C-alpha cells in the first residue's frame, strides 16, 4: 500500500519535471512587438554615445530593448530575405534587422517606408561594430 503511494508521487514528480523541461526546451523567442522599451532615444545622440565611449554604451544598452527615432537612410534586403533598415548614416548609423514574422504580417508598413523620412523602430540592441546593431526589430511608426 505504502509503495503504491510512493510510486504515484514519484510518477507525478516525473511528469511535472518532464513538463517543465519540455517547456524550457521549447520556450519561444521573446516577441519583440510585445516587449516594452527599456530606453526611448533619438538616433543621432545614440550614435554619438557609442562613438565617444563604446564600452560604457555597450554596458548600458546591450541586450536592452530600444525604441529609436531617426531618419531612414536605406531600406534593403539581405541575401537570406531579411529586411534591413539603416538609420541616419549608411556606413556608421544604426543597422536594424527586422523580425521576419513581423515583416510577413506588415508588408504594407515596409512598403510605405521612404528613405529620408523619419522612422521609429523598436528592437534589441546588440552593441557596436562600425555601426549600432539592432536585431530583431520592428517598425513602430
Amino acid at each position, binding site marked *: 500500500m505504502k509503495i503504491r503511494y510512493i510510486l504515484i508521487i514519484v510518477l507525478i514528480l516525473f511528469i511535472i519535471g518532464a513538463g517543465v523541461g519540455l517547456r*524550457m526546451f521549447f520556450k519561444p523567442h521573446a516577441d519583440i512587438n510585445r516587449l516594452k522599451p527599456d530606453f526611448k532615444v533619438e538616433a543621432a545622440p545614440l550614435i554619438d554615445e557609442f562613438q565617444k565611449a563604446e564600452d560604457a554604451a555597450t554596458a548600458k544598452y546591450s541586450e536592452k530593448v530600444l525604441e529609436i527615432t531617426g531618419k531612414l537612410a536605406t531600406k534593403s534586403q539581405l541575401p537570406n530575405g531579411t529586411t534591413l533598415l539603416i538609420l541616419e548614416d549608411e556606413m556608421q548609423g544604426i543597422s536594424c*534587422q527586422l523580425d521576419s514574422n513581423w515583416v510577413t504580417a506588415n508588408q504594407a508598413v515596409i512598403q510605405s517606408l521612404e528613405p529620408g523620412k523619419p522612422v521609429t523602430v523598436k528592437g534589441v540592441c546588440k*552593441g557596436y561594430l562600425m555601426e549600432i546593431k539592432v536585431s530583431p526589430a520592428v517598425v513602430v511608426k
Partner: protein
Amino acid sequence: MLRKLFILVFVVASATAFGQGKFISKNAYISFYSLTPLEDILGESNEAVSILNGETGEVGFQAIMTTFHFRRALMEEHFNENYMESSKYPKSKFNGKIENFNKDMLTAPVADIKITGQLTVHGVEKTITVPGTLGMQDGKLVGTSKFQVAPEDYGITIPSVVRDKIGKQMDITVKVNYLPYGK
C-alpha cells in the same frame, strides 16, 4: 610651390588608391553548426563586419556574439551564457592574409584560396589556416569559407552531460558579399 603641389598630388593619389583598394561588408554571414542526436544546432549571424584589403590580401572579420540567432531561445541562451560568455567576450575576430594573393583574384571568377590568420574566440587567440573561395559572381565580389573548430581549443568547456551530444568539432560557414569601400 612646385614642391607643395607635388606633395598635394601625392597625398591625393595615395588617398584614392587607399580608398579604391578596400572592400567591405557590414552584413557578412557566419554560422555555427553542430549535428547532435537530439537535434541540429545552428546559430546564424548576418551582422558580421568584414574588410578585405585589395592591395595586400589582408582580410579581417569581426562579429558580436549575441547577434547569432538560434531556432530555440534556450539554445541562444546557452550559447551566450554558458559557452561563449558573451557579456565577458562580446566580440570574436579574425585577422588573416590570403596566401599567394594577387589583385587578379578580385576580378576573376570564383576560385579556391587559403587564408592564414589569428582567430580570437572567447578571449583565446589561435593561428589557423582555412580553405575558402574568392572571386566575382553575378557582378559582385564574393568570399566564402568552410572550416571546423574545436570549442575546447578556445577554452569553451562543454558540460559533461551534453559533451557527447555536441560534436567535438563545430562547422563554421562564412559568406560575404563585398562592396568597394570608397570613403
